[in-house]
């Protein structure tokens, strides 16, 4: 007790908790939430590349997966930490640390009218094909990617199939010629 009264600095540090709102947890300078299976980092869009640099330095050797989600027609609740504005697109990447056998997921919000994120290939060259896939199917651009081109769809294709406003299309099935019951 007496120690706490004595030093002003420690008191100031613990002051932030007093207004009832606990300081949000941060890792690698990003807001963090806990997912079903692993911790989820929520960097701002301009923090995306530095966060990956920090993850790499901390032993996350491999970018195991990178994809995107289009939240255009999502009815549920977006579970994002306070301070992160939900946008239409979300680029999701997960990383693997061999030494600690640990996984971590990183999510960045990408607005529809300016769908650009920094490319991870300068830190994780393995994100190459995955980013091309996201570019191809979602139309999200990755700045400084060595070769941002369509990978699965034909080069001349118009539209991005995995967007929610891209119709699936269906072939009508007619059972005309099928044999009847007798």
């Amino acid at each position, binding site marked *: 007790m007496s120690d706490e009264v004595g030093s002003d600095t420690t008191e100031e540090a613990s002051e932030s908790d007093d207004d009832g709102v606990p300081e949000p947890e941060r890792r690698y300078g990003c807001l963090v939430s806990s997912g079903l299976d692993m911790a989820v980092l929520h960097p701002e869009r301009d923090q995306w590349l530095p966060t990956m640099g920090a993850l790499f330095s901390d032993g996350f050797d491999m970018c195991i997966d990178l994809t995107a989600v289009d939240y255009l027609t999502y009815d*549920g609740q977006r579970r994002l930490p306070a301070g992160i504005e939900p946008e239409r697109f979300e680029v999701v990447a997960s990383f693997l640390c061999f030494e600690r056998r640990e996984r971590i997921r990183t999510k960045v919000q990408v607005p529809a009218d300016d769908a650009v994120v920094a490319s991870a290939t300068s830190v994780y060259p393995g994100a190459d094909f995955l980013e091309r896939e996201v570019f191809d199917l979602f139309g999200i651009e990755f700045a*400084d990617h060595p070769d941002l081109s369509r990978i699965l769809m034909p080069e001349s294709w118009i539209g991005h199939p995995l967007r929610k406003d891209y119709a699936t299309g269906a072939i009508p099935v007619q059972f005309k010629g099928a044999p009847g019951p007798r």
Partner: protein
Amino acid sequence: MTITDQTPESDIGDVADAVSASGVPNQLYELPRRHAVLRMSEVQAAERANDPIDGENDQTMLVNMGPSHPSTHGVLRLMLEMDGEIVRRSKPVIGYLHTGMEKTGENLTYLQGPTNVTRMDYASPLFTELAFSLTVEKLLGIEVPERAVWIRMLMTEMNRIASHLLFMATNGMDLGAVSMMIYGWREREEVLRFFEMVTGLRMNHNYIRPGGVAADLPDGWRDAVGRLLEMLPPRLEEYDILMTGQPIWRDRLQGVGVITAAEAMALSATGPILRSTGVPWDLRRDQPYLAYDQVEFDIVVGSYGDSFDRYAIRLNEIRESIRIVHQILDKMPKGDYRVQDAKVTPPPRARIDESMEALIHHFKIFTEGFKVPEGEAYAAVESPRGELGCYIVSDGSPKPYRMHIRGPSFINLQTLPHMMADGMLADAVAVISSVDPIMGEVDR
């Protein structure tokens, strides 16, 4: 590292400099950039079609290999920059088998999901079903009964054997050991016969489903497995005699397509490619799923990271799988083969005849599907080709809002240009074969 030395002068140098100036720690960022120069859209290529030939700088030739080339395992197309017989830069061109299975997955219920994903990696379909089911179960928060867990292990290990036997066959064929092709297919067919007995189909089983498996093991399964386990080891010995010790076989594979551990990790390669560089990473041991923590097996690693290591790893993984299956036979518990949770499991057939509620319940599950709580989950399994992951975002409806499969073949394909660089064209065939890509999973 030779890769950086050979980087041709081009405008990508500026980008690479800018990146290294920003203090990003990775020294391997050149890896995709070297081969990126080759990539030119068809429109750009057409624009430059009439450019005059410059004798000094046009010493190399672009050769298209595939998409329908016998050694490209389906419809892989490679653009190779040839300097005489030597491959300089190359670019895999994929998408010929793309049918939008992830989009299809968003329009199928969770019960229909496995019918879709099983068609991705058609050489090891049960693994994709397993990854999908594990993810859905994680979202649902259910735990499948012991017997279902062990049945899943039995089936996926048998599938690993079948898939590696297929690799033995195609690898042999690609390198001219044509008799190996016949032996590999013959042995694989025996395993597929067992699958037909259990699931009703040789391939695309739709056997592992969210909540358990489709049906219990049939009568006589133990004998069928026993016969396979008796038949396989001597055949593997024959493969050893036919190939492993042969000087021709060794010359074709040793030192061909070398990749270092750092390169494999930077390029996100998993499975036998990563293990061939000496990294003992196997999800079955390192992040155990199912009941792999209760069986004993060794992880096979190589030390040179060449095509021969990848061949030897797969051959010995068949032996490890046989070892695991022996333990599964001993430990297979009794009990239910699917979870008895009315939310996800249809009522037993006999109940439908006598209860109206059971009929409605059955109808609801098969027409509407079961609802999965909101959230997102990722589950990964060790497929014969590496980490096979499934990422699902659920909005609380009976269909996944987003279903993404991390296909190991797709990502492992990125290592091809680096393994083929500065090798002979004939070795390129050996390298493609040693990556063992399944195009159904690459293109999805």
